[in-house]
């Protein structure tokens, strides 16, 4: 079976999608954690997807995004980057600015977190 449609659906329908190793409550990789923490500090409502249950998820995700590594962060369907970029954007203040520009001034008003299982 293919995950491509499900992956695209999460990317398109989520304000902030985070494809990561593990889940927010049980992070399995330091870089996934760096991205998650930066997004939390920025007040983002994160929809998390664990890529570990099936290696095919990661393969199909990278085919869609053209990005070879995990984590991958999307805001309103657009790839923002991996952990390095998200942290760099946080340091320059551009992360909150990007979230505000794409999601509106009150994007952080109701911060929540959810996990979507693809497999």
């Amino acid at each position, binding site marked *: 079976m293919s995950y491509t449609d499900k992956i695209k659906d999460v990317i398109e329908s989520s304000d902030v999608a985070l494809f990561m190793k593990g889940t927010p409550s049980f992070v399995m990789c330091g870089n996934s954690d760096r991205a998650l923490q930066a997004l939390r500090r920025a007040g983002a409502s994160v929809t998390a997807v664990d890529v570990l249950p099936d290696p095919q998820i990661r393969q199909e995700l990278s085919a869609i995004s*053209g990005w*070879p590594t995990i984590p991958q962060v999307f805001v309103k369907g657009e*790839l923002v*980057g991996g952990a*390095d*970029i998200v942290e*760099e954007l946080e340091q320059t203040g551009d992360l909150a600015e990007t979230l505000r520009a794409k999601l509106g001034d009150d994007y952080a008003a109701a911060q929540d977190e959810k996990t979507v299982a693809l497999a």
Partner: protein
Amino acid sequence: MSTQPLRDLLERAFPDATELDIVDRTGGGDHFQVVVTAPSLSGLSLVEQHRRVYEALSAPLGDGTIHELRIKTKGAS
């Protein structure tokens, strides 16, 4: 792997680089941090800048030689 093969790949991909810094973060030869500053990166988004680095290092990334890669890019010299 040592940092030299990565430096060679990056020098080939960014002949105009004014800064190329490659650090073996753990000493184990598979966790690297690279810093690339090159005028040819100017005007590109961070996503596009990092994509150029991934492309330059696609061979060692693809065969698992690089287990983890941290990237810092700058466009201006």
